[in-house]
């Protein structure tokens, strides 16, 4: 290796955040097989999330949900040219170590899996692979960033096909970002206390008017209109879990959600891509949700 090669700095926070920047404006799709991964890539997904069961099935089947089998993740990596993500349980840093060893491009420390630690999240600075975490409010988002998360997504309520929780989380996070932008220096101390978040990160939000990392939406996206709704609310990209492969025509729906995420503010295009998609996933009303995944994480 030449001497010049050594001036490459890998795995820095900037490099990890850089991949999140590349994924903006796109759709990241949950896939459980290599065939689904190819369908997702064909449809224009920017990345796939490799997992054994989509959240809707985890809800129905119950039991402990864990990191996927490395063989399954390798199979999906071999099937596509776009980035591959995979999930580790909250606090399960060994699952994250294994995913890094497999060379996945992004690790999702996810409330969709059964938490492994009831007090501690993964120290994400310890990883060269970028890690994304869910959040329901700005305090939670900034705590995850203080632990090294390179990307934040709303939690929403995964596996429900119901967008209401993701909207709640995005409105909470983005609303507080706006309010902090209006706060004076003394008020920022109070914001840090109330959010239970590090003061320097609160000050950074006040100064830049945005989170220190990108903010994507996840949890409950089932239609092109859902994707456009969260983009108009301020999300910078969209994760779709059960919404595609639990629908009547996954190929058509996947393409439509990709187009809706790009043309999120163009109602004529949204009307066009929303036609004839077949059945959306059935979905669950919040009153009927017995297990609230968004409550996992601290």
């Amino acid at each position: 290796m030449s001497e010049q090669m050594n001036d490459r700095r890998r795995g820095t926070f900037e490099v990890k955040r850089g991949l999140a920047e590349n994924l903006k404006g796109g759709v990241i799709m949950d896939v459980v097989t290599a065939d689904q991964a190819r369908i997702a890539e064909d449809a224009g997904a920017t990345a796939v999330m490799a997992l054994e069961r989509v959240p809707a099935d985890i809800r129905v089947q119950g039991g402990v949900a864990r990191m996927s089998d490395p063989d399954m993740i390798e199979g999906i990596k071999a099937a596509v040219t776009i980035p591959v993500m995979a999930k580790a349980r909250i606090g399960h840093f060994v699952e994250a170590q294994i995913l890094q060893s497999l060379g996945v491009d992004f690790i999702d420390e996810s409330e969709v899996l059964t938490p492994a630690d009831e007090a501690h999240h993964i120290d994400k600075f310890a990883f060269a692979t970028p890690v994304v975490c869910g959040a329901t409010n700005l305090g939670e988002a900034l705590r995850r960033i203080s632990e090294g998360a390179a990307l934040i997504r709303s939690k929403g309520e995964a596996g429900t096909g119901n967008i209401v929780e993701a909207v709640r989380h995005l409105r909470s996070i983005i609303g507080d970002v706006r309010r902090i932008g209006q706060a004076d220096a003394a008020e920022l101390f109070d914001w840090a206390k109330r959010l239970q978040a590090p003061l320097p990160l609160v000050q950074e939000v006040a100064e830049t008017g945005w989170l220190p990392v990108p903010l994507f939406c996840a949890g409950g996206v089932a239609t092109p209109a859902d994707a456009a709704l969260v983009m108009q609310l301020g999300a910078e990209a969209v994760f779709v879990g059960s919404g595609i492969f639990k629908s009547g025509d996954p190929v058509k729906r996947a393409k439509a959600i990709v187009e809706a995420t790009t043309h999120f503010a163009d109602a004529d295009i949204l009307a066009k891509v929303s036609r004839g998609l077949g059945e959306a996933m059935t979905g669950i009303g919040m009153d009927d949700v017995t297990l609230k995944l968004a409550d996992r994480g601290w």
Partner: protein
Amino acid sequence: MAARRVGVLALQGSYRRHAETCARLGASVIEVRTPADLAEVDALVLPGGESTTMSRLLDTSGLREPVAARLAEGMAAFGTCAGMILLAEDVADGRADQRSFGAIDLGVRRNAYGRQLDSFVAELDVTGLDGGPFHGVFIRAPMVERVGPGVTVLASHDDRPVLLRSGTVAVAAFHPELAHDDRVHDWFLQEVC
């Protein structure tokens, strides 16, 4: 600058960062998602992101032919990372249905630097750029494998060209929009456009 109205292809990727940078440098910036948007601009920036996604969206948005026609007429363009793939003549390791504009005579290989764990930052010496090295952010970057006649190499890293120009078309394997340094964009707007 020659280009007053700079379009940023906003189908997917880090387009906002490009738009912010060009606006800081005094350009009037338009996000381009439709042929009508394209008709409003004098130059086009193609951002980093996923080239497979953007290639598909170029077809569905109806932008493929108009962009090709404008490039053939000599519209100035700057492609970074995935944008470089879209402007190149030959693309290796792309998808079979992925198409590029062939606006600059280069052969590039997609993801040739490796997966995300091989992404890196490195300081680059750029010909003609005052003020010291430029901070190069390489994210699952494409590699330039062939440089055609008439293409000028302005920066290299590990003997591989990473910033190139041919006439009114410029490309970078890295992400100048993520560098917190406006000098490469300034060069594009002042010198290339």
